Structures are given as structure tokens and as C-alpha cells.
């Protein structure tokens, strides 16, 4: 089966600091991959390389058959197919929830305003926030803001969704509502890469878990394998601290 994402020997340096030291992996259509690892392991950087918010230092990333690390690649076109959800939501504070979701379809996809707003409304309904469409982000709870952010990313009808610790900035009681939205996306067949420490979520939704440490994928496998019988000592040490 054709892979949605192919990563070959990805390296990323910040000055002298080697954050990613040769990552290679494949992600299949409809697959949900959960990336775990200690802070500073490079997992967020890896995710950010997948839509070139961080340009790769070397190596190749191919998404839907297009090399995005090629300097001639049209990065804006590629990003339309790769949705991203951030830890800190990053909603546009000067726009309502509806405007947040409709902006990119209008400006990038060149949809008519009415069409884009209809699309935005249907997405807000899907994340359970139809009644919050006219609210500004500051009036919304963290969980609601993150759901708007997911709707905003979905509005570009991406083929892949990237989640960068989507629940770690949330109060505990709001984690569930955001994870439920992500779970539904998984059920609908969205290909996703999720950096998360929510082990229950990883077990329930993840097809595969990758453990990263010091810029490398140390171990990967099904959630049962990786959480149940980790092989690598570093994986075991990390899991013993968080489980």
C-alpha cells in the first residue's frame, strides 16, 4: 500500500545541537501513530519537520508522493494537505471561532465567504461547538479553543493531521473532550501523527507507538507490545516513570 508519509534519514540541527539524528519511518493511510518520549527527545521537532515549520537539515520527507524537502517543492501547497494542531492552540485572537475556521478556506482555497462559513459551521458542529461560532477565543475554555483549532485545521481538508501535544496545556477535566474529537477522527479514517503522553489514548486509538529519545526512534510497535513488553532499556526506564 502506498505510504502517506515516508521519512528517510531525517536530521535536524539547531546550531551545534543535533536534535534529530537520522529518523526513518513510514506511515500508511488511515494509520494513527503516537509518538512518545522524554522532553528534549526531539518528538515535537520531528512533527514540525513533517510540514516543514522546521526545515530539515538533511534527509528526505515524502508526503503523498511529493518530496517536501526538495527546495523546489511548493511548501504552501503541501501544507494545505497537512493539518497541524498545536499545544498552545494558537487561535487567531482577533477573529471569532467561525472566522478562525473560515479564514484559510477563503484566502488559500479561494472559497466564497458564504461557502467557507457553511463549511466552518459544519466543522464547528462536528467538534460540538456550533453554539460558540461567534465567540472570540478568549471567551472559550482551553478545551473549546483546542476543538476550534482542530476544526480550523480540518477546514483545509487535509490528508494527514499532526498533533503536537494537543492536551498538555489543558486542565485535566478538558482533556477528555479534545481526545474524543481526535478519536472520532481516527474512526473516520484520518491519517494522524500524535505527539502525546496520554497512554490511555495511545492504547485505545494508536495503531503504532514510537518511542523517541535523543533524536532517534529507539523503539516502535503496537501499543500492546510497546507498553506491555518494551525491549529497549531506555523505553523501559521512560515508561516506568510515566505509567
Amino acid at each position, binding site marked *: 500500500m502506498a505510504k502517506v508519509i515516508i521519512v528517510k534519514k531525517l536530521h535536524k540541527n539547531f546550531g551545534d545541537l543535533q536534535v534529530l539524528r537520522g529518523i526513518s519511518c513510514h506511515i500508511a493511510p488511515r494509520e494513527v501513530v503516537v509518538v512518545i518520549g522524554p522532553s528534549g527527545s526531539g518528538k515535537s521537532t520531528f512533527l514540525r519537520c513533517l510540514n516543514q515549520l522546521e526545515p530539515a537539515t538533511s534527509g528526505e520527507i515524502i508526503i503523498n508522493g511529493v518530496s517536501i524537502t526538495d527546495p523546489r517543492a511548493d511548501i*504552501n501547497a503541501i501544507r494545505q494537505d497537512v493539518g497541524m494542531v498545536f499545544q498552545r492552540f494558537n*487561535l487567531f485572537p482577533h477573529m471569532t471561532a467561525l472566522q478562525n475556521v473560515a*479564514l*484559510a478556506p477563503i484566502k*488559500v482555497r479561494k472559497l466564497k465567504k458564504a461557502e467557507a462559513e457553511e463549511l466552518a459551521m459544519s466543522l464547528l458542529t462536528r467538534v460540538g461547538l456550533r453554539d460558540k461560532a461567534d465567540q472570540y*477565543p478568549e471567551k472559550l475554555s482551553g478545551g473549546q479553543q483546542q476543538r476550534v483549532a482542530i476544526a480550523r485545521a480540518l477546514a*483545509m481538508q487535509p490528508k494527514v493531521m499532526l498533533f503536537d501535544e494537543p492536551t498538555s496545556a489543558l486542565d485535566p477535566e478538558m482533556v477528555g473532550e479534545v481526545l474524543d474529537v481526535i478519536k472520532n477522527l481516527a474512526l473516520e479514517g484520518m491519517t494522524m501523527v500524535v505527539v502525546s503522553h496520554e497512554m490511555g489514548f495511545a492504547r485505545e486509538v494508536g495503531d503504532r507507538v514510537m518511542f523517541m529519545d535523543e533524536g532517534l526512534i529507539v523503539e516502535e510497535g503496537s501499543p500492546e507490545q510497546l507498553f506491555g513488553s518494551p525491549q529497549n532499556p531506555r523505553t523501559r526506564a521512560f515508561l516506568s516513570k510515566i505509567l
Partner: protein
Amino acid sequence: MQFQFEKVFQYWPMILRGVQVTIQLTVVAVAIGTVIGLVTSLLRLSRFKPASLLARCYVDFIRGTPLMVQILLFYYGLPQLLGIKAFDRYFSGVVTLSINSGAYVSEIFRAGIQSIHHGQMEAARSLGMTYFQAMRYVILPQAFKRCIPPLGNEFIAMLKDSSLVSIISLQELMMTGRIIEGHYYRPFETYIVVALLYLFMTTTISQLVSYLERVFGKGDHSKETA
């Protein structure tokens, strides 16, 4: 000591004309300066090094030299250099003040743009927007709101600094004062009237700015806390 304000007020229409020229100069200079400032701040922040360097040289030169020197250099120096006859006074005044204002305004915009969290740019880019779309629809609308108070200060500073164009005999409020003083040698009465007129204009502007701040400030949701 007998004040002779009536001698000054004899020239009231001329004084009002001076006030009008001062306001025109300032409004036009800050308006053009805002456009120059916006472009300069974007160049300054761009990753294209020559553009950023050029913008920086311009800003450093203007901010590092006295406005009076800039005015003289433009009005007297440039025609000599180009071997042409003198520029129009009003033209010279407007151009010099605009170029001067542009440098200060570009620093205001640069600070405003940099004060917007980088996550905003990332979110916009991750949706497939170009750098300029992200600036236009996401960053600048937020930055502009934060720039209103310092832009108001710049407007007030420019209104006062415009008095320096009297050095090339451009007949705005300051130059009008100098002419009147030359007629009667009543410097106190003349310059106190001139000063109060400047004060009236600057306080009016600061009232206007705080009003604008209240109106537009409502939209700056990032600053409010729940």
C-alpha cells in the same frame, strides 16, 4: 511691564494659516511615514539579508542624525549634489519629515510585529498561507492595535518637530511666529501664543489617541484576561 498681545493678534489670520500648514505637514508626513514605515519594518524583518541591511541603514541614519541636519541636507545639499535648482520649500518639508517619520514608524511596527507570538505565524503558515497572507490577515491586524499608542506619540513628536522646517523659511506656525516677532520685537507675547497653539494641538491629538485606543482596544482580546 506692559503686555502687548494685541500686536500679535493683529496677525491672527496669518497665525491660523500657520497652524493649518503645521497640521497639513504633520498629517501628510505621518501618513506617508506610516507607509514607508510599514514597508521598512517588513524589509527589516525579512530573511533576505540585503533588504534587511538596507532598511537598517536607513533607520539608523535617520534616527542617528538631527532632523534639522536632514532638512538642510535635503533642501540645500541635494540640489547642489544633483546640479539642479532648489526644490520647492513645501515639497522639501513634506519629503524630509516623511522620510524622518518613516524611520521612527518602522521601529514602532517592528516592535508591534515582534510582540505577536510566533505561534500565530506558525498556525497561519501551517494552514498553507503564504508569508504575506499570514502577515496581512493574522499578524498585522493584531500588531496594528498594539501600535496605536506609540503611533499617537509619533504623531505628537512629528507635530512639534515640524517646527524645524522654519529653518528653510517654510511658513508654518513656528516660521509665522518668527516673522511676527521680527516685526514688533515682542518675543514673549509671540512665542507664548505659538507655544499655547502647539499645546492645544498636541493635547487634542492625545485625547483622540486615547479615544482610538478605547475603540480599537476592545478588539485586542489577547491582552484581556478571563
